């Protein structure tokens, strides 16, 4: 293979990216070396098994991916603003919408949510760590290496260009002969391992690691939503694993699952992809629902309305989410009976979602609302999400879907649910739990600027797309003619997109600004909140709780505070040594080997993939023979730490 086939060449945009990637790397290496931080980075972060640090790393990675996916989005908007634009060529445009979709769903939305779950859930249930701290690190590092593998396709070998759904035959060997599609398959496969492990880990954590006094029906709503999400992950991700593996076999080893010849069935790919893909939608929306529940309840200063109805509707969603997948390809023509069945299940699943909307509204009713930035995101979510949801029910009608399918109407719909659901929640959760993670709040004034600009931009960008779709504009076209009459709405959409970009940049600036100027927290409870994570001091000690807290009902921390006001201070008990797991370098090394194996398979360099897989197995064997039992935090150290922290 020649070097100019290995590196992507010929496009000034990509040369620019090459330079900026190189400069960033050199800059990072220089800073780490100059300030002698390599050892610190390794011992404190790269080998950590602490759920709070892993959560922070997930979120940092997700924000980086949001940046990359956002740049992709703006490039698309730039191309589509005016008719017959030649800013991007067709293939480049295909690559960009493919990486935009894949990155936003797999490498931005999920890690952002999983990051917040990592930080918050163990604290909410009064646990000192997750059930399997080592696996948690493996989860993070396989996700990270999978994401990196996918991302380097951009400069080495070429990006995938068959859409984030990778339908065959387009994604097959004949029509996508390059290595781009292999990057998609292997990057998602490696990241998927991490997601499945997260699912198992947090399911067991939530079920078995709660403080003994917390009953299932007293868990905070975010914990409940995470539990249901983990159930969906556990049963949906193996389907993706298989689907990706089958396409990998088709492309690398000549099997005939999805080919056009020798009996292959291209539409079987769509079927398998969406058996995973639809539950995936709920994987990224349920934790968002949980966060909004916490935030709305906190800032309405009321306990959540209809707790049980919330829980049961999520349980129903978990079951139904596996029975609606065909609505993504009604137009395949599976027949009237099939389409009717899936049309009905799809409309059914809107019911529990509607129940939740009313619960939030009733929580707000007669609440003494504080309009913090986190609350603003949550309030904006409700009407915007309803728009997305209602248009979703329109799409659910199979007969009507033949009109909407693959138009901008669909694009508008899923951006309305995914952005106003998931992305708003990520921002809301970030503002809300930021003081728990970094010991200072994000600036509220900048936060509100960022909020208003982003929300205005979002509606300006995507609302016109409904009408573009109804006017017949198909998704994934790289340009259109002046006679189509789509220009004015496209200009509007691009303007909105730019506003969203500005909103995001203000958020990033806010992170820097608050780091410099925001006052440090003096209490662990900046929002006068209700659940147990806020009962931990600032900063949170690495063992989380010196004494395990007691949960006496819903909003356990609120009850503790009420009791304190009535003078019932909890008696001071002596500390006991706390058992904690040891840090380990195995997860990151194992994941590097996964990366090597994946990279080898992308280029069909089998020596390299075998080498990588041997490395993976070797690290597993090392782990199997490792009988490290962790360590105990001594009473002296706990006393020392508790004195330093403020409560």
């Amino acid at each position: 293979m020649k070097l100019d086939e290995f590196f992507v060449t010929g496009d000034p945009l990509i040369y620019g990216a090459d330079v900026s990637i190189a400069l960033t790397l050199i800059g990072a290496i220089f800073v780490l070396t100059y300030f002698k931080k390599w050892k610190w980075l390794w011992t404190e972060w790269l080998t950590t098994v602490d759920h709070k640090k892993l959560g922070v790393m997930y979120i940092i990675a997700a924000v980086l991916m949001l940046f990359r996916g956002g740049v992709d989005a703006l490039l698309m908007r730039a191309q589509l603003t005016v008719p017959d634009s030649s800013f991007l060529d067709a293939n480049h445009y295909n690559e960009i919408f493919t990486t935009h979709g894949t990155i936003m769903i797999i490498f931005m939305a999920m890690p952002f949510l999983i990051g917040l779950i990592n930080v918050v859930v163990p604290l909410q249930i009064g646990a000192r760590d997750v059930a399997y701290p080592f696996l948690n690190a493996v989860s993070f590092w396989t996700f990270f290496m999978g994401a990196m593998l996918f991302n380097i396709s951009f400069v080495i070998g070429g990006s995938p260009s068959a859409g984030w759904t990778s339908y065959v035959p387009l994604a097959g060997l004949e029509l996508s002969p390059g290595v781009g599609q292999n990057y998609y398959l292997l990057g998602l496969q490696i990241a998927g391992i991490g997601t499945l492990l997260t699912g198992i880990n947090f399911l067991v954590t939530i079920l078995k690691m709660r403080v003994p006094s917390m009953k299932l029906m007293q868990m905070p709503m975010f914990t409940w939503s995470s539990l249901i999400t983990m159930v969906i992950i556990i049963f949906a991700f193996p389907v993706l694993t298989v689907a990706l593996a089958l396409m990998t076999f088709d492309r690398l080893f000549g099997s005939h699952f999805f080919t056009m010849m020798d009996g292959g069935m291209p539409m079987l790919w769509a079927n398998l992809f969406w058996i995973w893909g639809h539950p995936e939608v709920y994987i990224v929306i349920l934790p968002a629902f949980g966060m909004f529940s916490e935030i709305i309840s906190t800032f309405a200063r009321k306990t959540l309305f209809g707790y049980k109805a919330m829980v049961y509707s999520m349980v129903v969603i978990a079951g139904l989410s596996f029975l609606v997948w065909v609505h993504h390809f009604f137009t395949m023509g599976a027949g009237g009976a099939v389409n009717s069945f899936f049309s009905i299940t799809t409309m059914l699943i809107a019911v529990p979602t509607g129940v939740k909307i009313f619960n939030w509204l009733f929580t707000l009713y007669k609440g003494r609302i504080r309009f913090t930035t986190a609350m603003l995101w949550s309030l904006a979510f409700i009407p915007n999400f309803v728009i997305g949801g209602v248009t979703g029910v329109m799409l659910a009608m199979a007969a009507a879907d033949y009109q909407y399918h693959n138009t901008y109407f669909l694009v508008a719909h899923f951006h309305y649910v995914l952005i106003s659901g998931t992305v708003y929640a990520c921002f809301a959760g970030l503002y809300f739990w930021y003081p728990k993670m970094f010991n200072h709040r994000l600036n509220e004034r900048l936060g509100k600027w960022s909020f208003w600009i982003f929300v205005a931009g979002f509606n300006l960008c995507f609302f016109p797309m409904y009408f573009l779709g109804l006017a017949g504009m198909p998704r994934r076209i790289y340009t259109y003619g002046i006679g189509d009459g789509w220009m004015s709405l496209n200009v509007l959409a691009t303007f909105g997109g730019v506003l969203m970009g500005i909103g995001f940049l203000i958020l990033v600036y806010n992170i820097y600004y608050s780091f410099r100027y925001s006052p440090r927290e003096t209490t662990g409870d900046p929002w006068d909140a209700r659940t147990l994570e806020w009962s931990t001091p600032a900063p949170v000690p690495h063992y989380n709780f010196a004494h395990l807290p007691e949960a006496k009902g819903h909003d356990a921390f609120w009850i503790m505070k009420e009791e304190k006001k009535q003078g019932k201070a909890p008696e001071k008990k002596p500390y006991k040594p706390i058992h904690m797991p040891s840090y380990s370098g195995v997860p990151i090394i194992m994941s590097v080997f996964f990366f090597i194996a994946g990279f080898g398979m992308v280029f069909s360099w089998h020596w390299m993939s075998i080498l990588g897989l041997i490395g993976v197995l070797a690290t597993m064997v090392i782990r199997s023979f490792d009988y490290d039992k962790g360590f105990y935090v001594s009473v002296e150290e706990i006393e020392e730490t508790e004195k330093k922290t403020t409560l």
Partner: protein
Amino acid sequence: MESVEYSPNTPLEYQSETGRLNILGFWVFLGAEIALFSTLFATYLVLVGRTGGGPGPEELFELKGVLIETFLLLTSSFTCGLAIHYMRNHSLKGVFLWIGVTLALGLGFLGFEIYEFVHYIHEGAALTTSAYWSGFFVLVGTHGAHVTMGIAWISLILIQLKQRGLTPDTTRKVFISSLYWHFLDVVWIFIFTAVYLYGMVM
């Protein structure tokens, strides 16, 4: 992770917090494995008959070999259960004996399966022949790969058992690997039914 009161009758593998958590976690993992294999089964069943002009299963499947594989694996699942039985009676010798038998039967199963695969390939039915055979080799091959992994994994645990004897840690590992081994037999029951019986009766 604090040690909890337990009765001396509690099996060793359940005596530590880690033991209880890991066993539960492995059950959850088996739930995920069910989803994984059911996707492979769904794929296989959809591709039945799509031989693209190549040979079909009714021409190649032979009852004798399949039965030998089935009974080897079924018996290995039984002997694996015996190993756990002896483990709970604190007989290290019994554990070694019956796990040894289990591994031997597992290797026998693998041998017959590899022979079967090679035979099919000789007869002109390989992964690349048609969609049907792609489905067959990947479904049955994934199971075979699991068996291979299982043999390697259990062998490693035997070494640890030799080094450390029966402790809460080693018994936990033996027990979890036994769950895995039984599960592979469960999967085989369905392969026997949905692939071989279906293919031969059709």
